[in-house]
């Protein structure tokens, strides 16, 4: 079970049995769970659409969950916590909400934690197979979607595909979500992949290209300020696969247009199911292919 060391056994059991994708724990409020595309409530007997039977989290329980998620060693995870997130074993991501504590202008901690958003990943093998003919190297590809549409799952599968096809793949796993390396071992089978965990992307591109000689680089959650480094990275002859939050292709293009970095844009959606690939576009926004498997 993924969360058996963090959540009470009954909750962990339900999360595992019902393949919950996301849990929202808020102090004094019933626990909400996302299963597939459906929101419901967590009760002691399982998932329920009724709020009345739902488990209500108290402050003490929330703090305990956070403490256990840190493996009883908050200092080892404080750097992540002050950035509002925490990645634990098996790639489970926990968003942390609370009050920031500043000391001499530096953020040192989050206190009065009021909510935790637990996102549970599930590997989806062969998710990228149908689009690889369009985005295989040397096409630099940007995967775009709103939150929780499956970008990280897809980019992980792309890394797997690249490794299986003998490309030396460097995974820049800034938030430890793509490969989820624990004690030096990735939670996913990613052949021919080197993983830089917790590295800032700009720094990782630099040292990765110089030291690890990758054919391809895979990274997650590109920000606008990182695009100049992306352009440098691509200029070194490496094929880049990245993800970005955007609601539509036009929004993404407006951010990357000046850099001429990407040859392909892959649009995901979650209207019908998580990880739904909608279409593939070229670098100018011209539609190359659509997918309709719902």
């Amino acid at each position, binding site marked *: 079970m993924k969360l058996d060391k963090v959540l009470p056994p009954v909750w962990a059991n339900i999360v595992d049995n019902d393949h919950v994708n996301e849990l929202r724990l808020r102090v004094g409020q019933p626990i909400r769970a996302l299963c597939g595309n459906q929101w419901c409530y967590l009760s002691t007997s399982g998932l329920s659409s009724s709020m009345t039977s739902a488990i209500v989290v108290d402050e003490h329980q929330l703090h*305990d969950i956070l*403490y256990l998620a*840190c*493996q*009883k*060693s*908050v*200092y*080892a995870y*404080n750097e992540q916590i002050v950035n509002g997130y925490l990645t634990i074993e098996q790639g489970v991501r926990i968003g942390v909400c609370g009050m920031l504590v500043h000391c001499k202008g530096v953020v*040192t*901690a989050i206190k009065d934690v009021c909510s935790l958003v637990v996102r549970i990943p599930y590997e989806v093998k062969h998710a990228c197979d149908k689009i690889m003919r369009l985005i295989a190297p040397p096409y630099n590809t940007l995967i775009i979607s709103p939150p929780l549409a499956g970008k990280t799952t897809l980019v992980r599968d792309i890394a797997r595909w690249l490794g299986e096809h003998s490309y030396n793949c460097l995974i820049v796993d800034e938030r430890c979500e793509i490969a989820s390396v624990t004690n030096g071992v990735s939670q996913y089978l990613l052949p021919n992949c080197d993983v830089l965990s917790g590295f800032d992307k700009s720094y990782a591109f630099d040292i990765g290209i110089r030291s690890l000689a990758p054919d391809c680089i895979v990274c997650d959650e590109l920000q606008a300020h990182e695009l100049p480094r992306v352009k440098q990275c691509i200029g070194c002859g490496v094929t880049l696969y990245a993800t970005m939050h955007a609601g539509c292709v036009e929004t993404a293009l407006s951010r990357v247009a000046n850099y001429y970095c990407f040859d392909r844009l892959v649009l995901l959606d979650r209207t019908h199911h998580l990880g739904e690939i909608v279409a593939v576009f070229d670098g100018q926004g011209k539609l190359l292919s659509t997918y309709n498997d719902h």
Partner: protein
Amino acid sequence: MTSIACIIVMGSCVLLGFMYASKYVDAEKFFYSFSMFCQQFSANLGYQQHTIDQILSQGNYSKHFVDCALISMSSNQSTERLHTIRFLNDTDKGYIQDFFASIGRSDAQTQAVQLQFFSTYASQRLIECQQESKNKGKMSQKLGIIVGLLLCILII
């Protein structure tokens, strides 16, 4: 028959003497582990920041120390089990519970400050235990041998 009785008596007395002395040896090992843990934890805070479980599994700490750590850090296990460790006095138990209640609960800088106090305490208790082991421990072993010999003489 007399010889067998002497051997049994001698063996029992020596064993009792060593068993009594083991209390001081265990205490010395415990506070040595405590002191080493504080040092390794402090070094770890400024370097790799491994979790407490990782530090405990990597170090060569005494079994009593690891048990104390796991009991004190776990909310599921009753701290009554700590009271069965005979070589720890009430003050020691209080400090150890406070120590493991505080480590792992804050950032590296705060941990380093908190650690200084407990590290000093652990070092002082280690010196005391080493003295006790040297004096009382050895005395217990010798007493066991002497009492055994005396009883053997009486039997003979």
